[in-house]
């Protein structure tokens, strides 16, 4: 006879994902870990409310994000990144170096509004369906879709990823070839 795993035993398996999700919300590693700590304590004492067999990660993530937003209603403004790692300019074209590109992404991601970061992580990184994400965030499915769309659009702008589609060519010689006109 198969026994469903005790959620108390399963909790530890979700900690890495919870930390990653918390970091995408809080942006600050210390705040993120505090958030996970609060979530674990809350989850533990409320496990009687968890329905065995349902998605434990979704349940944990819901507690986490609710805790985050209620934390923020207490604070007047969002905590700025104290390490200053996210204030570097993004005016340059993306580098071909994978490492630098990843940091460009982190910087751009940090600039998105919280709800967009949240939606994009739930759907794009964790792989929750729009429906599940909407339930976790307490909003309509359409809201999650528009948040992820706006997030991707903004990221593309910040990282200059869609510049290839534009006909704004920076090189006059190339421009001349394309337009069939001689350079001035």
């Amino acid at each position, binding site marked *: 006879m198969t026994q469903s795993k005790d959620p*108390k035993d399963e*909790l*530890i398996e979700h*900690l*890495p*994902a919870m*930390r*990653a999700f918390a*970091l*995408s919300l809080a942006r600050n590693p210390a705040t993120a*870990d505090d958030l*996970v*700590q609060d979530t*674990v*304590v809350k989850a*533990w004492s409320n496990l009687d409310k968890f329905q065995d067999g349902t998605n434990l990660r979704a349940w944990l993530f819901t507690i986490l994000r609710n805790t985050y937003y209620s934390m923020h209603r207490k604070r007047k403004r969002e905590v700025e990144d104290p390490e200053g790692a996210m204030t570097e300019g993004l005016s340059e074209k993306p580098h071909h170096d994978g490492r630098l*590109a*990843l940091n460009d*992404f*982190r910087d751009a*991601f940090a600039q998105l509004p919280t709800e967009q970061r949240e939606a*994009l*992580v739930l759907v*794009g*990184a*964790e792989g929750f369906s729009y429906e599940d994400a909407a339930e976790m965030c307490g909003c309509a499915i359409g809201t999650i879709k528009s948040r992820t769309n706006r997030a*991707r*659009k903004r*990221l*593309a702008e910040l*990282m200059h*990823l*869609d510049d*290839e*589609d534009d006909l704004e060519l920076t090189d006059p010689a190339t421009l001349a070839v394309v337009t069939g006109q001689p350079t001035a």
Partner: protein
Amino acid sequence: MTKKRRNTKVDQQIDENLRRVYSEAAQEPVPDRFTQLLEQLREQEQSKQADADGKPE
């Protein structure tokens, strides 16, 4: 007028970056404070249980 459709390749790049950044964070070893917290929570619960049962574990 802005483009109506975003380049699929662009979306793919974004998702790749997103997943890489996210999985880097998710692959970090869990700090001791959390394993200790879970131990504490278990112990508290066990001692509550023992009190409730009125007999030693």
